[in-house]
């Protein structure tokens, strides 16, 4: 049996994202690894009350021009549209930028709740969610606001806090190449959170620069195995 995972447009790939869904969005923060075309499609699709899990909240198109000439669309679109009720990430807004990102404005207006998570803790929470684990103990955040309300445990004489898994209904992922089965490889630092998030969602949707026939990718270098990937769209690179 062959399942066709390849779709012709990002709009078709995100059509069933429902109101109230939890959506992981890959990338690191700026352009590298950001599934820009899927984000634009989701902003057109219009699903509301989303919980978005992403490393950074985006800066919006205007400030994005400081990070890459010409700028690029980012998660700011979803906040401008009022589609997000909660953001979970390590850098909702960049302290080095003016306080004018769409997320920072929405937060100030009381429209978006923020859960701030140390970056490595976030990656590990997602890995736990993906791997069916109930959580993990970490020293990161001990003695800071991050430990608030969390179980503590002393292990080998050192204090740890319990962090719980993160999963999502959908993950929006950027990869460099996919074969038509959904095996993925990434390009340079556009890898970042993408392979981690690709494994932790019920439906993983990937935009790729290049789609290739099965058998063309070297099995030794495939980063994300096809079992995690449900939908693929080739976008103009």
């Amino acid at each position, binding site marked *: 049996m062959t399942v066709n995972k390849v779709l012709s447009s990002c709009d078709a790939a995100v059509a069933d994202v429902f109101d109230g869904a939890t959506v992981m969005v890959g990338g690191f923060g*700026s352009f590298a690894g950001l599934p820009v075309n899927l984000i634009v499609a989701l902003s057109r699709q219009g699903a509301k009350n989303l919980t978005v899990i992403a490393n950074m909240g985006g800066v919006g198109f205007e400030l994005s021009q400081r*990070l890459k000439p010409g700028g690029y669309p980012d998660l700011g679109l979803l906040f401008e549209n009022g589609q997000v009720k909660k953001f979970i990430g390590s850098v*909702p*807004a960049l302290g080095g930028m003016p306080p004018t990102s769409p997320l920072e404005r929405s937060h100030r207006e009381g429209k978006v709740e923020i859960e701030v998570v140390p970056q490595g803790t976030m990656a590990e929470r997602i890995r736990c969610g993906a791997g069916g684990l109930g959580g993990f103990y970490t020293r990161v955040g001990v*003695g800071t606001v991050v430990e608030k309300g969390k179980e503590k445990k002393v292990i080998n004489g050192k204090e740890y806090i319990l962090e719980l898994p993160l999963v999502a209904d959908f993950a929006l992922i950027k990869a460099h190449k996919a074969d038509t089965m959904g095996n993925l490889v990434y390009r*340079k*630092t556009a890898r970042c959170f993408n392979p981690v998030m690709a494994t932790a969602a019920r439906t993983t949707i990937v935009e790729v620069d290049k789609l290739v026939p099965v058998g063309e990718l070297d099995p030794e270098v495939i*980063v994300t195995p096809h079992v995690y990937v449900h939908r693929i769209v080739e976008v103009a690179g």
Partner: protein
Amino acid sequence: MKSRLDEQTITLRATREFADGSVVNLGYGMPGLCANFIPEGRTVFFQSENGMLGYGSLASDAEKDYEMINASDQPVTPMPGLCFFDSAASFDMIRGGHIDVVVLGAYQVSEKGDLANWGRPGRPATGMGGGMDLASGAKKVIVTMLHTTKEGEPRIVKECTYPLTARQCVSIVITDLAVIEVTKEGLVLKEIAPGWTVPEVQNLTEARLIPAKDIKEIAL
């Protein structure tokens, strides 16, 4: 008005702390410049928490690839032996004690070496990024920062009033006025900017400074 060290000089001084062969992570902002100032004859492996080990200097305009960036969103150049990995693997490396040195910026450092570097009044939506993981996991934490705020308030304080990144994690603070080591006895003033005196630097520091016996002028 006496002159203070500029950002490049602070950064250059920080790179003098990198031992040959060390693995170094550079925090957001000023620390990123360190990649451009590796002391002659030393090999340093720069790790970036977005998933890269072994990059070189910041990229020139002609070299810029926006999928080849450091954690401060700046395009950087590859070095032989460069490798990429995902965020989870990157933070295993960081939490697991495989990073020798991290250079971080700061809003405040306390006399016990507590670090506050991610949140400040009026900006409730900023986050710590990988700062907590790095401050907790790296073997040595170097802070580079300006000695005082724009308003002239000390940033080296008795107790941090800004949100903490990690407790008792800082080893050394390099500012535009001084190099200060965090020890069990307190903050030891090791080096001082040219033309400045110990009482002048102490005046701009809330925490008590212990002048080192061999205190000297900051030199590169």
